[in-house]
């Protein structure tokens, strides 16, 4: 069963509630207008318009090099757009403490601390995001949900690539957030766990008000997650709300 972790139980000396990033915003979680993205002279995406509502799951699809990862990176404020406007939780990405409390991203596999176990990496995430307020899963439950019980006390360098991917996804759900950005989360995962992950995103994260935007090539995974599909093609959003096979 998915549980909510109240702040009063987990936060060390958690004080009274404070406003979170974009908490008082009534508009959609993400609003993109006429955005252009690129690297140097190379324009990857142009004239991108996208609106994502709170609690929605959006799957961004497209062939390799379509700009899916670049779009996610830009939504996280790690890459600056060349033109257009971008609003995340009511304001442009600010790259400050409040923003990173509200936004989580799983892109490339992280570099692991050589001395920390699987469980300790998850505890570290909770520690860096304390006081914990909002929906997330405790470390023990994440370890169980993500099938890492047998390897909970191993260091990540001893895990298989699929297990490392599970751990990096688990780390994103070990802390509360309002927007979760996932870059090809299905990578290295077996078919059964993909379905379980899709269910967790839909019934756990999104059902508790979180918004998910993920780049994916797996149509079944996107469908299982109940995602609205966006197709990027030839540098533009070719089909918002697509309901066909994923490229």
């Amino acid at each position, binding site marked *: 069963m998915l549980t909510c972790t109240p702040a009063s139980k987990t936060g060390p000396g958690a004080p009274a509630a404070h406003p979170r990033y974009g908490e008082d915003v009534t508009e959609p979680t993400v609003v993109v207008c006429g955005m252009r993205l690129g690297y140097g*002279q*190379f324009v990857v995406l142009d004239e991108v318009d996208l609106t994502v509502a709170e609690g929605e799951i959006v799957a961004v699809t497209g062939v390799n090099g379509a700009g899916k990862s670049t779009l996610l990176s830009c939504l996280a404020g*790690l890459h600056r757009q060349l033109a257009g406007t971008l609003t995340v939780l009511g304001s442009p990405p600010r790259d400050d403490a409040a923003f990173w409390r509200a936004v989580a991203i799983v892109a490339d596999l*992280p570099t692991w601390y050589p001395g920390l176990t699987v469980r300790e990496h998850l505890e570290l995430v909770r520690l860096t995001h*304390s006081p914990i307020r909002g929906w997330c899963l405790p470390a023990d439950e994440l370890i169980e949900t993500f099938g890492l019980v047998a390897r909970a006390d191993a260091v990540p360098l001893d895990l298989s690539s699929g297990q490392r991917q599970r751990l990096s996804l688990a780390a994103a759900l070990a802390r509360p957030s309002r927007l979760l950005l996932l870059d090809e989360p299905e990578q290295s995962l077996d078919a059964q766990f993909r379905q379980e992950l899709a269910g967790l995103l839909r019934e756990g994260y999104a059902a508790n008000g979180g918004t998910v935007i993920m780049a994916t090539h797996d149509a079944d995974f996107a469908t299982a997650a109940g995602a609205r599909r966006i197709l990027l093609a030839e540098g533009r959003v070719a089909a918002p709300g697509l309901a066909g096979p994923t490229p």
Partner: protein
Amino acid sequence: MTSPAAEATSVATIRSFVGSRQVRRRAWYDWYAMGFAVVLFAILASDVLAEPFSRLTAAPGASPPAQAVAGAALVVAAAAGLLVLAQTFGPLAIAPADASWLLLSPLNRRAVLRRPLTTTSVLAALAGAVLGMLALAMAGPYLPRAHHELSAWLVLAAIGGAGFFTAAVLTAVLAQPSRRQRGRLRAAAATVSAAAVLLGVAGRRWSGLAHAVTAGFEHISYLTASVLAAVALAAACGAVLMARRMLPLFPAGVLRDDSVRAGRTRLAASFLNVPLLTWVAEDNRWRGQLLASRPWPRLPNALTLAWPRLSPAFTLAWADWRRLGRRPAPLAVLVASTLAPALVAAAITGHARGLTIAATVLAGALAAGTQGAAALRRDANDPTLRRLLGVDAGAALAARAALPALLSAAWLTVALTVLVLAGALSGRLWPALGLVAAPGAAAAALRIARAEPIDPSQRGPDTPISTPPWLATRAISALLGVIGCFPLLKAVRAGRADGGTFVAQLALSVIVLGGYLFFAAR
């Protein structure tokens, strides 16, 4: 209202959490190994620095003006080079694991970055202090000072050097988030370095210029030096304050990319992994560039018919030629670096002079050769393309040896000609000797490029008393260069070359390159 940042876990707590769970704590033998390395480094450094610092107490006549100017120029060029190096790999960077787990979090960014900034500042101050004292040592005989003021001059030089270099490095930190500012800073450092090298070499050729510069040294009074040191200190303090103020706003994206790159660089440098270092250096260069694709060149039909194996091998090797044509900057640096041996010759005296010039010549020849072997570095362990084109390993390697050999030949010819023009060598044989030594250097460049990356988990134990096995494999490449160019290097060290040297070098070059191609392609 309480701000979220104020409630967040402190970075010290996080570091304590991570630190307390390290797999292995340092034992007494780790401290012994570190202490041993420090003492060894101190002994070697004192041996190298003894000669330059001996000039501090020398009379003006003991060190000719040209030497003082070249020495000072060498120090300035070294400072500019260090700055470019620092800027290329950071200069502000955190451990890759910290970048993954602490950066994109609500943690106070100023606290996360305070320690790396302090490390960068301290390292810059130490390097700057050494550079400042070296610059003083170079100009020492011409400074108007009494012997009892020597320690005061040294202190001022150390403060001045530390201050100015720290300010420069922290300026690089301030420029780090902006690609344009980084480019400007790199261009400024390259310009300063080139001007210093030119001045140093020109000072040896035209004594009037050297006299004018040393006359300038004589006008630096104790008061002027004190003011300069104070200005340097103020500049450093200002830069530290500005950098500290900027820490909370330092963009996470830039810092994450730079930290990952710095981590890879540290790993590659630890194992002398040239392919990985090259990849790190080139990764950012090509991303975001649109290149004009051109058709693959074809050899004339007559050549293809005469040597059917030549055409596909040439096709494979052409990647390096094309890459070189698309990167004019390294070529320009190579051209500028041909002045380096002449500058070293002008600046250094004593028993190590000949050896240092020879080492500079060898390093330049190898650097030039490796510039022509980048594609080889990338697919050294992947024979797929070679099989696809139907090229056997020997023909492919031979075709790929041509560009490194040409680049080494060009570099050696120009560098040796500059040495002759600067008066460090005499005779007309040197440029020709450079030409025939190039194949020897090319063999070493090819071996450097083809060296397989070292898997850190398979490298065997590092102990204070034994040489790590991976170091031996890397040293063999340099040794091959020494063997391949031995007659030339011996002649450069002695300052004399004759017909016998030429013949010996020609024979050795053919044997070394031919032998390497024969054995490496098997």
